[in-house]
């Protein structure tokens, strides 16, 4: 079990940093088109913020904010968003993952842009959730079986 780190400095710092870091994650996600960045990196940053919270305030805070079944479901939802974006391309008359054919009222080039954004959002969710789960599960002292 990860213990709560009872230091005012650390806790205050984490309290301030967390929202900023999460905002930065969103920025990395959105800016991924133009510069180094993207869903994977955003997901790692997002996941790290929760791990940071757990390190400062103890594992319990994770159980309150995102408990494990929800976390697994979030991860699955992220990947599902990816897959469904691909399926939406099929619905628009293209093949699987053909974002230029997404059924959006924009030009194919813009549609490709949005398609990537959807997919990267899915990746962000998936990676963040996976990191949190890995942290929780591997950090458990005793296995349940």
């Amino acid at each position, binding site marked *: 079990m990860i213990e709560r780190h009872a230091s005012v400095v650390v806790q205050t710092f984490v309290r301030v940093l967390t929202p900023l870091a999460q905002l930065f994650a969103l920025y990395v996600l959105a800016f991924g088109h133009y510069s180094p960045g993207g869903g994977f990196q955003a997901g790692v940053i997002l996941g790290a913020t929760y791990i940071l919270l757990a390190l400062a305030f103890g594992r319990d805070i994770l159980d309150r904010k995102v408990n494990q079944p929800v976390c697994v479901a979030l991860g699955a939802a992220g990947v599902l968003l990816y897959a469904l974006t691909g399926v939406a391309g099929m619905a628009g008359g293209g093949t699987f993952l053909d974002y230029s054919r997404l059924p959006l009222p924009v030009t194919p080039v813009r549609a490709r842009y949005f398609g990537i954004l959807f997919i990267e959002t899915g990746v962000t969710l998936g990676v963040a959730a996976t990191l949190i789960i890995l942290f929780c*599960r591997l950090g458990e002292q*005793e*296995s349940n*079986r």
Partner: protein
Amino acid sequence: MNYPYWVAVGLLMLGLYTMIAHRNLLKKAVGMTIFQTAIILFFLLLAVKRDASLPIVSGADVDPARFMNPLPHALMLTAIVVMVATSGVALAILIRLYARYGSLEEDVIAERVASDEADPA
């Protein structure tokens, strides 16, 4: 010219040897990572080209011959994710093995597994 490939081969052998010869499961897992990394290195070496730059198209000055091959990098990005997942599963299993049998030495675990199977509690 081909020396870097020998590094990859060396790492490969090192990893394989560690996986097969070491009795400690954690070291096996380390060997596994070295082994996979060697393969990634091998792929990346395939993309190397002298006097070439990153294949980022900016401006009109486009000469494909001056770009490095981006495909191996893309492939290895995927392979790295796969590798992370494999290592994650391996470590998760090791943690639970340790919790159950109190050791990561192959022979000790084999012994305790045998007594486990003889008398499943």
